[in-house]
């Protein structure tokens, strides 16, 4: 009898605490959206921020975030794919493989601020790229590459072994098997993982403060020549991202409506991350159906 009451109490506690987490998330999202949504308008999304007066927007910051994301993915996806495929298909168990695995593990648990400092020292100062989008993208590469490697490796490992064996039985070379047999099957998982990691990059700030910089030059959105200094496409200009902007507004914002700006920008950030999550799921399913015979087999 006593054991049974204990069981009931414990179950009640576990259920309560689990539901508490759901409530925390609901409260968080509700608060962010409730506070931020009524501040979001087309003008807020497109206009430039103002330092001291009220009414500034987040246009350049939003653009910088997205542009930086594209740059980072352009660098990390090919590199992460290469290293991940190597780890999944080519590396033989041994000391070197164990070492590489350790490196991936350590790199992915490095604090992002240490990555930012490293970027400040090596990329910004020694390579002389200055506070720029390229510096930020390279720092994010250090930060994102281990993630990509892990995603790719897992995706390749989850491909059934028979598929590979069938390829070998047909006399295909290893490279052919990797590119034409395994890669299409692994692709949906890779795309899902990439988009999810992109969401993380989008919200990253600490690594960018010291590499992409904390200011944005006056951008001329009619100038699409990537070499001119006021062009939004110029990768060698400093760029404050949305996440850095939220931090800056909260820490040292001078505008009278700083709290509203932070609320609106936070809502935009969270909504974007939510969209990334949804798109990742949808794309994964869509591409899986396109590339494999799953539809015909059912």
């Amino acid at each position, binding site marked *: 009898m006593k054991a049974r009451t204990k069981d009931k109490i414990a179950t009640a506690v576990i259920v309560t605490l689990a539901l508490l987490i759901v409530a925390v998330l609901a409260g968080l*999202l509700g608060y962010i959206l409730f506070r931020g949504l009524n501040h979001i308008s087309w003008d807020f999304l497109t206009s430039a921020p103002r330092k001291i007066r009220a009414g500034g927007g987040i246009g350049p910051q939003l653009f910088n975030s997205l542009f930086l994301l594209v740059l980072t993915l352009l660098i990390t996806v090919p590199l992460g794919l290469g290293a991940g495929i190597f780890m999944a298909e080519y590396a033989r168990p041994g000391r070197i493989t164990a070492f590489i695995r350790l490196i991936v593990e350590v790199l992915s648990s490095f604090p992002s601020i240490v990555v930012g400092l490293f970027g400040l020292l090596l990329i910004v100062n020694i390579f002389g790229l200055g506070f720029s989008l390229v510096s930020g993208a390279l720092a994010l590469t250090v930060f994102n590459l281990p993630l990509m490697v892990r995603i790719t490796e897992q995706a390749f490992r989850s491909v059934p072994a028979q598929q590979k064996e069938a390829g070998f039985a047909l006399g295909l070379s290893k490279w052919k098997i990797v590119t034409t047999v395994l890669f299409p099957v692994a692709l949906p998982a890779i795309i899902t993982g990439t988009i999810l990691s992109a969401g993380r990059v989008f919200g990253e700030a*600490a690594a960018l403060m010291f590499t992409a910089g904390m200011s944005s030059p006056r951008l001329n959105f009619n100038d699409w020549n990537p070499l001119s200094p006021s062009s939004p496409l110029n990768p060698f200009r400093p760029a404050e991202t949305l996440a850095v902007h939220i931090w800056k507004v909260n820490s040292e914002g001078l505008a009278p409506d700083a709290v509203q700006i932070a*609320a609106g920008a*936070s809502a935009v950030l969270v909504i974007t991350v939510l969209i990334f999550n949804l798109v990742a799921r949808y794309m994964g399913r869509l591409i899986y159906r396109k590339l494999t015979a799953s539809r015909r087999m059912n």
Partner: protein
Amino acid sequence: MIVQNNKIAQNHKSRIEKHHIEDFIGRSYMSFCVLLLIVAIISMVYFVMSKGVSTFVVDKVSISDFFFGTKWSPEGNNPSFGALPFIAGSFITTLLAALIASPLSICAALFMTEIVPGWGKKLLQPVIELLSGIPSVVYGFVGLSVIVPFLRDVFPGQGIGVAAGSIVLSVMILPTITSVAVDALSALPQNLKESSFALGATRWQTISGVIIPTTLPAILTGVVLGMARAFGEALAVQMVIGNAPFIPKSLFESASTLTSVITLGMGNTTMGSPQNNSLWSMALVLMLMTFLFVFIVRLLEKRRAI
């Protein structure tokens, strides 16, 4: 006839060679990618080390003064570089965050795997994923506008401080601990549970006597991973902790962490100055702590394998 055979043979040979070339190119490209990872980590360790050590080598700050000195006043005629307040702040907030988040995470994991495995997982899985997707600056913003005013009204002090920092961190590390714990619990062999139930044990007796003890190393792995994340988190903590260079005497007092000092200080100091070097030493401490956390995780995983 012979000529034709030759042609076929040649054709065959060139095809094999094409395969070889493809294989070679692919393999070299992948080796290059892996090599890049190795170069990245070696250069990172090298640069952070060399900058971090210069506080002790170039500026002649003694190691014990840095690690155990409580006075942080890097400017002025008689500067002192005691980093103990920041080290203490980092450890206190990290431990508190783990203390808050671990029971919650373990309950969430039990809820998903033992209590209502069907809809429990369907409900909590997306919740955990969304929590881990929310950017840290947003956590900082919500902490600053919800938790800090709440603490200010209920407890003595300004609201900003160790308690606020720990609460914000605990929500941030919840997903890490939960997802590792869920993996561990769902990997548990079914017959262990079944034999416990067959002996007439209640669910709670099974959970507390069989499930938790067997999965403890794995759950601890999750806790350590969460602590690693909390220790390295910079901006969210910086926004709510108050950034006072003292060892906190109560939970509701302002304090600083290693990350928050670096965040605030790095932009305002010139490269190579003693103050700047001491910030790099703190980054070095952060890096060494990462190594330590990874080391502990590996130890725990070895125990798990047995």
